[in-house]
């Protein structure tokens, strides 16, 4: 199996194919930015992008990313750790509290803004509904996504 994760090509051992994708990312590839909040596809903390689509890694096997382009939170920022405007917007808008939902939230928002760079607040609200956040009430997360939209498109 061959996959690209954060612009880096990986040759994956066939034995890995049946392993849980989230565990594999976290345990074998040390990509711990994707979190396990429920393990059942219910919270979105484990969200990654595969070919620009938001995917809950806890519900997939490693074989799912075969031949796909994967983006995890570790790949969002640019060279030298320069933040993506969406990440900066999360900081500026106070959208980060405990931060456990943040990587998944940013990636879900990123996938959404790639498709819709001029959304309404209601569309953003709907788009992040698969992702749970217990801290923020989502208000400032929506602010952050709205603010960052101008950078897309």
């Amino acid at each position, binding site marked *: 199996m061959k996959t690209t994760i954060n612009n880096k090509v990986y040759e994956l051992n066939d034995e890995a194919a049946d392993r849980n994708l989230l565990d594999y990312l976290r345990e074998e590839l040390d990509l*711990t930015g994707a979190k396990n909040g429920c393990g*059942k596809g219910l919270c979105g903390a484990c969200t990654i992008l595969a070919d620009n689509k938001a995917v809950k890694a806890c519900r997939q096997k490693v074989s799912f990313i075969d031949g796909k382009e994967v983006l995890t939170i570790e790949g969002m920022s640019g060279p030298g750790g320069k933040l993506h405007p969406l990440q900066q917007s999360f900081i500026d808008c106070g959208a980060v*509290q405990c931060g456990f939902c943040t990587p998944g939230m940013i990636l879900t928002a990123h996938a959404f803004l790639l498709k819709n760079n001029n959304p309404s607040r209601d569309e953003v609200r709907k788009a992040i509904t698969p992702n749970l956040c217990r801290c923020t009430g989502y*208000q400032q997360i929506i602010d952050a996504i709205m603010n960052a939209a101008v950078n897309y498109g």
Partner: protein
Amino acid sequence: MKQAETGKKAWRNDAYSKVTGQAEYCDDLKVHGMAHAVPVYSSEVHAEIISIETEEARSFPGVLSVITAGDIPGEIRYGQIYKDYHMLADDRIRFNGDVIAIVVAQKREQAVAAAKLVRLNAKPLPPLLDPEEALKDGASLVHEDHIFEGKSCNITNHHKIRRGNVSAAFKECDFVIERKFNTQYIEHSYLEPESGLCIPRYDGVMEVMGSMQHPFSTRRFVAAILGAKLSDVEVRSVAVGGGFGGKDDTAALVCARAALAAKILNKPVKMTYDREWSFRESYKRHPYIIYYKMGIKNGKIHAAEVKIIADSGAYCSVTPWVTWRSTVQCCGPYEVEHVHCDTYGVYTNNVFTGAMRGFGSPQLNFAIEQLVDIAAEKLGISPVEFRKQNMLRQGSTTITGQVLDTHTVSLDQVFEETLKRMDYESKLAKCSRGRADENSDELYGTGLALSYRGMSLGAEGMDFNSAIINVQPDGSILLEAAIHENGQGAESAFILIAAGELGTSVDRIRYRQPSTSNIPDGGTTVASRGTIMGGGAVVTATRELKRKLAMALCCRLSCNPGDIRFFNDRIYGKTDDVFLTYEQAVHEMYLQQEIPYAFGVFKAPKVSWDEETGKGNAYFTWVYGCQAVELTVNRKTGKVKLLNMTAAHEVGRAINMPMILGQIYGGMAMGAGYGLMEEVKVKDGIIQNTNFNTYKIPRAADLPEMQAIVIENGDPLSPSGAKGIGEPANELMAPAIANAVYNATGIRYYSSPLKITVENENNNK
């Protein structure tokens, strides 16, 4: 009064690491040679343990050890108030989340698989599940050795208020309202489940990292299970994925069990809970049964008689403290002359209950704020007017006899601001009250709730905190306070407070990674006490540092120590052309053999309490809040749609405005969950919903746009002027919703979450 400026950019010391995925939470950590531990539960709710068979699990591939209570070198039982929690069950199963063994293996999957092979032989006992039954004389005992007020019983505590003479007062009343309220179990639902990583260190210390909100409490649990001294255990902080009061006992237990395994195997052990285990074992918000009798005379709340029964579940945890707050605040933010309150915490075989954001106030507010609306309606006046006639004002006396005159009593401000922002009274007139428009099934309603809240621990706890500030040779500064970062932004608030005091930029100050071996125990990070207590200590420490700097530098700056000024990231003499940079200042200090280091302590001002009469100055200061909501209820489906939620909170002085707003929004959202959606369903002592598909917390689409108004009245008794916001934000939305649903439907709901009854199709006109 100063209103918040909004639109200000947020700042947090940990934001960069959190948006890049670099922030390390406990389960993200890996240590060479690390083993994995998992808990083993049984299917029992209440049973006598005969034996625990571990042979089969032990021989499972990869398994390193299966540990049961008999392997504990230290104390098997521990707890914050009573030592009633069997860290591994030994004699009995007391609730379905009791852990009977831990399995340690090289790989986590191996431990999970082997855990299924541990067998319990037990004699089932009838479970005691009804708290009112458990209170009765002759009820079976959850803890046979528990004695309260000289007798064996299930009562964990009994708090009282005896003010005036209620029975005489009720006779004088124009009318009396009597209602029973029930509130539900709530799971904190911090997004990160519990995790602990313990490393036996070369110097004999057990190093502990974990997802916890009280490192010092965790240290006590770990030391107890190991039979070690407190100095033999070092608990270090890592990023924590939310707490909300829920990462105390259970989080400490997870760390203690991991430490036990690490000690036995002499290797690093990580124990990370999955969501189902977390739901099953972790303590919940107490469900309350509240019997409330409120008497009204001449438009005033004249008398209140309250009986509160809180289900503590199988263990006590902090039930006496939670229920104490309920007792003190049992009449809400109103003046009441005659009060009789009895509050009981009681053991059952249900899941245990403990601290959760709000700490005994959400339950009572759910009752009081509905009763106040009921009373107003009976009087034929608006609930706004009725509240104005009864609410606490500057110089008012609380039901425990405390005169509110040491701070600005901001209740009327938060109330007025909310009314104004919502245009509340004109909206109130538009409520459907059970009658929808011709062509619509949507019933419209608005509602609000008011509260006051004692800050920090109050008269039930030792309340003080410390901070350390240490200027480095290059002028950079290390800061630390004995308050824990759970995600709320405590560290950032302290940096902002110190930077404000020292006139430096925030970049100069780094928060030192906290450890229980660095700083004295400052108590738990609960009770919205982080900013007020830790911030107070930070102010004391920075002032001490400034004193030291001024004494040492006054010669160099050719002035008196009192003339020295701190601003612009520098230290100035009398005029703006005479200054030292921090680096120069430290150099000068060193030449004088002075260390630019200060330790500061903030001791909470004196509070008092009489257990028998319920009289005293319960808390040294209070905050005030008001929340309102607009919603519609579909009369055919019962579905509630929230249209808008608005809050006004007085916070003392605002330190980090965007974070305060975040606390308010998050608090309202959680309050909406309490009012409408969330309920841990317990059937025959077994929790039925153990993940987010069946235990529903608010998602983005469930919530409306929110507005938050922050009112600042710096508190003279708080060195930083700040008070707190975490809990006040979470104690009002449920009753506001209940009032709004009534105003929409004309139906009162006395149990949370509200289960809206749907109109029978045939009844529709």
